């Protein structure tokens, strides 16, 4: 009897504890001078030039500005500089490098009203320091190519400097990735030991130091893996940010992200790092009346690499049969509500160099079958085509990242479409860690491999299509030409495009590049991925760009309805 009484007592105590917890008020509803954003990742570092990560770019977009950037119309504009240097306005002057190569000297002037968060003016001293850190091979800062090419910087005065590049390329004035470091804060860490600089930089040891930032907001609080708090920067030169505070919460699970949005724990889900399009479509169906869901297709190019070392895939006709057999339009409509347009080449139609008149592969299973018959794959065994003479089955291994629901769904649809024309596709997926860690980088896939590229506007695909960039053991697996595509004309085109300054001539070269791409077909283009922004009805001004630069770079244009 007493046991029973004790158990009842215990149960009551547990209930009381739960009751107390329930009685405690939840987090207060966000006021309109505060915006809470949910993203799925927490940055590994806050240093702008170490490591490349979307979460970091998104957060730093609120707090810092690049010298140059592509705007919403995909035009290159100045943010930290006063005037975009061009050959036409005389601020960029072609020259010869000391080694006799064609180079260019480009002069930038820092905005006179640009200050670090602690009130110190941004000067050429910061530019020289950033360049010194980037050029030092021991710091591991990125992007390596920018610092290698900028072989000299001359400070004209406190605000004006000239960068000398050892290459004269069409994008000579784009220094989007040259992210300024505060010399007065970080120089001591760098000079102590360049090798350990990446471990000792103030961006990670003193992240809330206001002197590290110069954007509309400052980072005032960080809780690793949980959240980052931003507050208005009184030293910001432009229109003040629309919110007193912006809180960026990390919620890795997308179902929990949705629940947090519905509960009011967050106000919006960032399109850069939030729901996938299929998740957003489902969410919109259920809760679309309460939120604005904005889809923006852009430069994330989903495609299938074909390993051209595979004897079957070396035959261009087989590659054509593969693309004719699949209905990409139906996939886009049925799985993604038409929000992710079909890609007909590697260049997005929003990019000015896109050529609309290149050949397009329509869904034509009959044509696919005719091609396969011509290639002597006529013998059918259990619905799978075999070569009439050799008896070789028309079979490929098809890989992608395991656990990526949208990709796995697309993969299954493609598998069944290929099966209907007699092509046997065996799915073998791997976790992203293994897939990108080794299988792709060391070209260990044997047939088809699906994944995506993220690029900038008018991004020359040297790394992906030039034969010098095929990863091999000998070159330490450098390069991203995973299909192993070798085409002399393509190599020559890439080299010409990079140095062609005349837009019209360059456009013609780009057209030819796209033509070769779709006729040689080393890669099957699928679709351009869209980002889904889920926002409260009262939030205005968030305008996705479609390219890799985050919406946070224009936060001062956001507002409250």
């Amino acid at each position, binding site marked *: 009897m007493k046991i029973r009484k004790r158990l009842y007592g*215990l149960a009551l105590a547990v209930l009381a504890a739960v009751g107390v917890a329930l009685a405690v008020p939840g*987090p207060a509803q966000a006021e309109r001078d505060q915006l809470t954003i949910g993203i799925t990742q927490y940055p590994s570092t806050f240093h702008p030039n170490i490591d490349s990560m979307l979460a970091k770019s998104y957060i730093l977009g609120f707090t810092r500005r690049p010298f140059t950037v592509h705007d919403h119309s995909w035009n290159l504009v100045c943010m930290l500089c006063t005037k975009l240097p061009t050959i036409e306005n005389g601020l960029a002057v072609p020259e010869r490098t000391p080694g006799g190569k064609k180079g260019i000297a480009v002069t930038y002037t820092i905005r006179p009203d640009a200050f670090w968060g602690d009130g110190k003016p941004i000067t050429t001293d910061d530019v020289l320091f950033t360049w010194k850190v980037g050029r030092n091979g021991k710091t591991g800062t990125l992007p390596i190519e920018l610092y290698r090419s900028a072989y000299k910087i001359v400070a004209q005065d406190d605000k004006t400097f000239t960068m000398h590049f050892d290459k004269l390329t069409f994008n000579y004035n784009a220094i989007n990735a040259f992210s300024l470091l505060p010399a007065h804060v970080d120089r001591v860490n760098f000079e102590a030991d360049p090798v350990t600089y990446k471990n000792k930089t103030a961006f*990670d040891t003193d992240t809330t130091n206001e002197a590290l930032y110069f954007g509309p907001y400052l980072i005032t609080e960080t809780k690793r893996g*949980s959240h980052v708090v931003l507050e208005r920067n009184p030293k910001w030169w432009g229109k003040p940010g629309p919110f007193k505070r912006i809180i960026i919460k990390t919620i890795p699970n997308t179902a*929990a992200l949705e629940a*947090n949005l519905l509960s009011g724990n967050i106000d919006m889900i960032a399109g850069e790092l939030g729901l996938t399009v299929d998740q957003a479509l489902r969410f919109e169906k259920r809760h679309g009346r309460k939120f604005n869901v904005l889809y923006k297709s852009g430069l994330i190019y989903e495609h299938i690499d074909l390993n051209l070392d595979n004897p079957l895939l070396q035959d261009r006709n087989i590659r054509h049969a593969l693309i004719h057999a699949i209905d990409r339009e139906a996939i886009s409509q049925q799985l993604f509500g038409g929000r992710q347009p079909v890609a007909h080449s590697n260049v997005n139609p929003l990019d000015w160099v896109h050529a609309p008149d290149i050949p397009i592969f329509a869904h034509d299973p009959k044509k696919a079958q005719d091609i396969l018959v011509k290639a002597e794959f006529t013998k059918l065994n259990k619905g799978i085509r075999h070569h009439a003479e050799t008896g070789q089955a028309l079979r490929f291994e098809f890989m992608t990242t395991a656990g990526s629901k949208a990709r796995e769904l697309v993969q299954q649809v493609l598998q069944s479409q290929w099966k209907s024309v007699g092509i046997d596709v065996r799915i073998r997926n791997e976790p992203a860690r293994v897939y990108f*860690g080794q299988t792709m980088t060391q070209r260990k896939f044997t047939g088809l491999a699906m994944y995506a590229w993220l690029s900038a506007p008018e991004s020359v695909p040297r*790394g992906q299509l030039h034969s010098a960039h095929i990863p091999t053991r000998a070159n330490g697996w450098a390069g991203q030409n995973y299909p192993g595509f070798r085409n002399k004309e393509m190599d020559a085109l890439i080299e010409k495009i990079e140095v062609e300054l005349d837009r019209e001539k360059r456009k013609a070269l780009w057209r030819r590049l796209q033509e070769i791409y779709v006729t040689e077909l080393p890669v099957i283009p699928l679709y351009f991925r869209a980002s889904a922004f889920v926002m409260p009805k009262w939030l205005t001004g968030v305008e996705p760009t479609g390219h890799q630069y985050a919406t946070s770079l224009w936060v001062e244009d956001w507002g409250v309805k």
Partner: protein
Amino acid sequence: MLWFLGQRLVQSAVVLTVMSFVIFGLIGLMPGDPVDLLISADPEMTSDDIARLREIYGLDRPLVERYGVWLWAVLQGDFGFSRLFAQPVITVLLPALGNTLALLGISLALALAIGLPLGIYAAVKPYSPRDYAVNLMAFAGISIPSFWLGLLLIILFAVVLGILPAGGFGTPGVDDWSDKLIYLVLPAMSLTLASVGGHTRYMRASMLETLRQDYIRTARAKGLSERRVVLGHALRNALIPVTTIIALDFGFLFSGALITETIFAYPGMGKLTYDAVMGNDFNLALICLLLATLVTLIGNILADLAYAWLDPRIGFEARQP
């Protein structure tokens, strides 16, 4: 007892050293390294750049040599630097460890406080309606997937009732333990509900077995009250197998709270270990995995001590050579 403790500590140190080598080797064998990630982020990287970066990250040396360097540094108290979080490993580890201990401590205590009495309650009258009711609840707890339970709790308490935060670690700008406690309620409830069923079933089975023993029949024949029979005579013996399960739970809970931590965006050890392994953060992954081993070993030592306390026949002296 001191001899026993000393012996077990030496054994644990040997196991830890062996495990450190095994884990170091396994992580080294995993596909990809930190530089591979940098290569995939920069298509213009040349083979010279890659060689230089491998040297910077110390990946150009043989695995055994790297292990030797790492072990020597650890013995000097230097646990290395987390590549993923750009902080010393210990700086990353300690807050996550504290968060996990708080979460697991509360949920384990609650699970035991609920599960053990329920198990006893069911075992005292086996195959009665109350036994069936307890079993039903226990099986429900065991069967519900933790991610689904977590989402259900979020929907009920955060979305529908709106009385608890859906996830996170604390209100930004508020550094107060009571605020953190509110954020702990849902993840702790989720973990408790997931493990209480198991504890109830183990306790019930163990108590049932004990209550069938001759000495229990003797105790009852002596005219002792049922309360004294169950709590005074049966409970200590019935707790011995349950103690083993609790000890094993230590290690499991330490790394097994990953799903709960992910759903509730709670920055604990489970999520940290997962991120470290998936993000090629060798130093951090290694220490996280070794810590899980260490916790399991400590759990087992504590279980051994508890055996002797529960059953004096299990002495320490007998184990001396």
